[in-house]
């Protein structure tokens, strides 16, 4: 849990005092050495060109430590500028900074409970902040908070959705590039996943259609993630971690950008207008869970020199740990950056002795007992990533097959005929398999199933006009697609905008000729 990022601040291992951008600016003007507001580099001093202002300097968040005093109590806290926080408000979270705790909790965070006056009130006023001149490095898993006008999380307001339900299809580079499936674009999803050849490869691929192949996968797995329903709770991240034996790597390694989560929750802020290099005060937040997309034409597969990542007949982008030598080319070539590399023997060594190599201490056996016995534990030097919980898929397939055999035997014994199994008997009933992330999602945002079955829930969702592929123009044909987000803001509210900020940022960038405020009104 320490390594599960906070959904909004994306901090791991520590809590920080979230302060509003206006307060940050004020503090920065009083204490110029704080470094609260990222320094813009080169051309973005006057605006648009380089997006460094939305980044932490050097990829690490070097947070200034200040003393937060309230009444008689004071506590030293690292400051974190939180876009969207009301001016001159600070937010402290409780639960961290414990004094009596084991190895894992030591030194993480500060204890904000000291500030509570015992009355039970969680909202207090009259606090003061004074910088101590010290700094604390915070391990933030997302260094960049802006979507930079890219059509990654696609959004519209409700009335825009009503007038154009397929608004998501009209965004992104693929909206004005040749269709992803070429002449097969108009075919049904089921036809596409079962009969469209995988790319224009010079190599002959086995024809895995029902008619031509003995080994044809009788299912074709796919997933949808509904961005409308995602609340950013991060339960999927934790569930995946425990299901798939994903190692916890520790603060130091998170700082080096080596967190191992197979599914991560991207959080973007978008603002009514980005004023050059400033952190905006008034923002909208967009969440997006990103795991391996199981692309049909996966860029990772074609670059692996040893065939360690390959496609299986049911559409899974499979990872053969045993075959992986660890060139990491696949991770480079993954446009979604979902592949995770075992830089160390995370599972074998204690987190604080990783750098001691073979002379470091081994993890105690207790950790091993927490592992899921159905999932391989990976050694150092191999790549790993989301498998769509292939162990659960296999388990269900085996159970379905056993049941089908029993039924067939039963009917054979009653009718006196030989037993035969038909494909329809071997098909796993829709909804039987739930991936770990899907199982825990409290808002049912994640749906997994067989896309070759037109009646499965996932197929139905994929035919929703809101359905879109992230970076679809790359023609990766991801099996995980997203349902675009629809906001329904109250027009009477002062922060009402006729179009979501993320959509405005995209349209401003994609169609720079239409500038200005009238822009938000109508895009299509």
């Amino acid at each position, binding site marked *: 849990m320490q390594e599960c990022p906070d959904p909004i601040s994306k901090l791991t291992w520590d809590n920080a005092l979230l302060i509003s951008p206006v307060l940050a600016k004020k503090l920065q003007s009083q204490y110029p050495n704080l470094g609260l507001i990222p320094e813009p580099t080169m051309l*973005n001093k006057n605006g648009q060109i380089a997006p460094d202002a939305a980044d932490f300097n050097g990829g690490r968040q070097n947070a200034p430590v200040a003393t937060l005093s309230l009444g008689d109590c004071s506590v030293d806290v690292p400051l974190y500028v939180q876009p969207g926080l009301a001016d001159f408000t600070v937010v402290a979270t409780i639960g961290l900074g414990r004094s009596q705790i084991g190895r894992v909790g030591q030194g993480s965070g500060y204890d904000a409970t000291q500030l509570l006056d015992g009355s039970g009130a969680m909202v207090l006023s009259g606090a003061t902040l004074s910088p101590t001149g010290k700094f604390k490095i915070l391990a933030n898993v997302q260094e960049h908070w802006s979507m930079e006008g890219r059509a*990654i999380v696609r959004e519209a307001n409700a009335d825009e959705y009503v007038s154009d339900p397929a608004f998501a299809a009209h965004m992104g580079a693929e909206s004005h590039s040749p269709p992803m499936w070429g002449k097969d674009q108009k075919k049904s999803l089921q036809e596409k996943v079962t009969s469209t050849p995988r790319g224009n490869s010079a190599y002959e691929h086995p024809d895995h259609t029902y008619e031509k192949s003995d080994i044809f996968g009788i299912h074709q797995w796919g997933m949808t993630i509904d961005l409308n329903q995602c609340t950013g709770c991060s339960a999927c991240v934790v569930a995946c971690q425990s299901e798939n034996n994903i190692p916890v790597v520790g603060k130091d390694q998170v700082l080096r950008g080596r967190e191992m989560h197979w599914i991560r929750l991207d959080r973007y802020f978008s603002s009514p207008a980005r004023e050059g290099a400033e952190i905006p005060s008034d923002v909208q937040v967009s969440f997006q869970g990103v795991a391996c997309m199981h692309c049909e034409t996966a860029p990772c597969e074609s*670059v*692996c020199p040893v065939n360690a990542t390959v496609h299986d007949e049911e559409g899974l982008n499979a990872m053969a740990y045993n075959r992986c030598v660890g060139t990491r*080319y696949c991770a480079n070539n993954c446009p979604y950056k979902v592949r995770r*590399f075992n830089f160390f023997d995370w599972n074998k060594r204690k987190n604080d002795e990783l*750098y001691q190599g073979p002379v470091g201490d081994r993890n105690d056996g207790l950790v091993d007992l927490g592992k899921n016995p159905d999932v391989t534990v990976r050694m150092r030097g191999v790549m790993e990533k989301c498998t769509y919980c292939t162990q659960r898929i296999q388990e269900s397939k085996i159970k379905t097959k056993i049941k089908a055999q029993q039924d067939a035997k039963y009917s054979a014994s009653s009718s006196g005929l030989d037993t035969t199994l038909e494909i329809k008997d071997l098909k796993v009933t829709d909804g039987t398999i739930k991936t770990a992330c899907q199982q825990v999602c409290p808002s049912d945002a994640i749906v997994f199933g067989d896309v070759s079955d037109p009646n499965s829930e996932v197929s139905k969702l994929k035919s929703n006009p809101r359905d879109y592929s992230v970076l679809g123009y790359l023609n990766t044909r991801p099996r995980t697609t997203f349902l675009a987000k629809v906001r329904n803001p109250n027009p009477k509210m002062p922060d009402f905008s006729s179009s979501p900020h993320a959509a405005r940022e995209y349209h401003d960038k*994609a169609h720079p000729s239409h500038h200005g405020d009238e822009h938000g009104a109508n895009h299509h």
Partner: protein
Amino acid sequence: MADVQEAHPPEIMEKVKPAPWKEVPLVLNNRSFGWVTDKICGVVESKTPTWWWWCFIMALCVASFTGMGLVYLVSTGVGVWGNNNPVNWGWAIVNFVFWIGIGHAGTLISAVLCLLKQKWRTSINRASEAMTVFAVLCAGIFPLFHVGRVWFAWWLFPLPNANAIWPQFRSPLEWDVFAVSTYATVSVLFWYMGMIPDMAVLRDRAKETWRKYFYGFFAMGWRNANNHWRNFEMAYLLLAGLSTPLVLSVHTIVSFDFAVANLPGWHTTIFPPYFVAGAIFSGFGMVLTLLLPVRAVYGLHDLITQKHIDNMCKITLATGSLVGYAYAMEFFIAWYGANSYEGFAFINRAFGNYWWSYWIMVSCNVICPQLFWFKKIRENTPLVWIISIFVNVGMWFERFVIANTTLSRDFLPSSWGYYSPTVVDIFTFFGTFGFFSVLFLLFLRFLPLMPMCEVKSVMPQADPHGGEKH
């Protein structure tokens, strides 16, 4: 045809009166064949100079950094380097491309210039070929050891095995395996074969027994016979022909590591020619860096003349300008292609979080070599040497810029990250210079640093017409 022209020179010739063509001799001071032999063999036969020992021991110490870095790396994990999730290739691949690029000048000098009958190549080709071989050895370390499980790296070779699993021939890394191993093999062959007659000379002059055996073994029974020379020259020509496509192919394939990937800033068709030009550029930079001190130390001014330096400077200038053109063209295409990801990748290169590396690259690779337009500068040997160092630095940064700016900020801003090397990265790379120097010093000490036979063949004395113009 020639007779006709001689009989009727064009009338214009009377008016313009062209200045007589001044052919600068390739060996100065009208030296004799014997002098050349004594000079080159003397380097090997003389007592080991003290400076050599100092340099050698220092180079060994530096080389040990690479050794220690690799031991730590293999025993502990790739995590000891600075690589992280968006930047999965850090210095290792940068260093690989850097070293492999350096090798290119050697092949160009020995093969392409041989086929083009550029006589001035003779006094620099042996050392450049040695540089090529050693640079390829240094380069090979990185792709081999950057993998997570180096003990399985042999899986990249198409060996028949019980699992019936083959390497994946669609992967540019797999192409690298073939490109680089071919390149290394042909370079070693070419280098060694050219040395055979010189080895025989050293064998025949040898006084100590070990020398007789050592050079005798490698001279492969060379007796200076007519048919030996005939075979030698034919084989040399064939190998030159074989190596010529390698000058283009190796760095083309290395560039595919990037160009075949789909990342903005990598996925461009300009990469192969741009990489080849850059490789030749960096190679000539390194040849100058190495040969100018060698020339000074061994007093080879009559053999490596100002003309040689001039020519190398001009090639550096030409390829440096080509590289500069490629940088500009990348920006143009990124804008013209109107892909916002691509456009961002290039703006980010120049003005993003690694802006400093981009401007180091531009100033070293594009601006610095422009000084070679001036004769005064080409004739100022120390300055040429300094500029050649800048070229090397610039080309390392070019690879750094290409590899890191793209990886650190690609498609999804949520996954952007910043890469910085660790001490282990730095020491491992630094150590390869020691490794390279160890090999080069051994080469200087034990092998003929110039092809005596070829140098003699371009001297006026070798001309049966005694320098008369016909």
